[in-house]
């Protein structure tokens, strides 16, 4: 797929918030309506597992199936509206220098690693561990039921016309980014993926940077 790469006009020096998230760590933050959220793949080939919620009602959350069905395409890129389970638009992708992002592959978990690779993989760190740690520390009543099918920014999970699916080497590279505008007050939850068992992180998980520009549309 030759996606149209779209750069952002916003400069990092104007960002109202910046945070480097090390590999294997979660990040949770509210993003007010009208703000812009940029996720930068600092060193390249890093999967960023991401969930979004209506900040005022966590039952209204990102829905992968509604998102891909509404746009009629399984890959996320500039122009994609991220649709919630209640049919609302949570975020819109406004810039993307990577080209496409996955929302079918889900998050790694120690349990699914046991199935996919071997029963001995149980004690390797995984995204769901990070997600659960983050929502417990957030202390807003979220639990495992809120960890639903997520987005994998910078991850390459092609589906073939005959219905096969695979995890391929990343299509991302150092400094590539995706930028989203919040269409409502949103809670963003990220796990910077620690997976070592497949090429989603190039077998070398690395840090990402998250930037927010608040109040740009107000």
């Amino acid at each position, binding site marked *: 797929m030759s996606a149209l790469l779209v750069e952002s006009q916003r400069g990092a020096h104007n960002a109202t918030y910046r945070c480097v998230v090390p590999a294997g760590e979660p990040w949770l933050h509210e993003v007010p309506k009208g703000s812009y959220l940029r996720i930068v793949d600092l060193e390249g080939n890093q999967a960023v597992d991401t969930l979004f919620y209506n900040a005022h009602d966590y039952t209204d959350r990102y829905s992968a199936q509604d998102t891909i069905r509404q746009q009629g395409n399984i890959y996320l890129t500039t122009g994609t509206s991220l649709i919630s389970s209640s049919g609302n638009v949570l975020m819109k992708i406004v810039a993307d220098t990577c080209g496409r992002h996955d929302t079918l592959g889900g998050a790694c978990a120690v349990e699914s690693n046991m199935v996919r690779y071997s029963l001995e993989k149980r004690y390797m760190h995984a995204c769901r561990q990070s997600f659960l740690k983050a929502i417990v520390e957030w202390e807003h009543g979220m639990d495992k039921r809120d960890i639903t099918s997520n987005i994998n920014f910078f991850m390459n999970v092609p589906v073939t016309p005959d*219905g096969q699916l695979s995890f391929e080497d990343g299509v991302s590279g150092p400094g590539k980014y995706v930028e989203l505008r919040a269409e409502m007050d949103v809670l963003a939850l990220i796990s910077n993926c620690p997976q070592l068992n497949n090429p989603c992180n190039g077998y070398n998980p690395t840090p990402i940077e998250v930037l927010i520009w608040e109040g740009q549309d107000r």
Partner: protein
Amino acid sequence: MSESSVLWEETVEPGAAWSHVLKRGTSLLLTDMEGGANVGAVFYNFECPAERFNLPDTLKAQHIARLTKGCVLYSDMGRILCSITEDSVGWHDPLGGCSNAAWVACKFGEAPYQQFRNNCFRNGRDGFLVELEKWGLGPRDLTANVNFFSRVTVSEDGSMTFHPRNSMSRSHVELRAEMNVLVVLNTCQHPLDPNPKYEPKPVRLSIRKARPTGAADPCRRFRPENSRGFTLTERYFA
């Protein structure tokens, strides 16, 4: 499978929802009575419904974007909820999700109960949510669903195509419960179905005793991953 194994049967009317705890060791045979049916379905471990169907784990463990005989439905805990033990269709859709009230109203117009009585228009999401409430579950528990009898293919550029006439009259698919599984389903139309008319189809359900699974079970041998999934499921009951 012999008719003597049938425990009971029922027809789910067009557009209706249904739920049942399918016991470990039994199976659910779904039959498309007229052709062109769609069955949206979600699955939970009845003993602990926080363990539920996980679509991404199901797809990536088996390297699939379609469901057919041999495939299994994984929970988020690395265990198997149900196995697909028979299938005359060859392709069931895990991608398209379910219809909702806004989509039905926009596509087919309004048909409320007041005027239309039990021919009123129904939608997949509300059907799921009402059934889930009966088991103490709610909107937070509604996961990504599968759509039996429907086929959505993905082209090279990622675009999705719904294929009408994927399922003919008398087509069937059988699910074997590998734990006590709360099955919640509805017979609403697939949300990518281009049919301009509200025309959901009836589906026949047959609950049966399942044959015991062994080491040679085709679902277990479908992928090395599935062998480990069965092992983890057996450990849960050990």
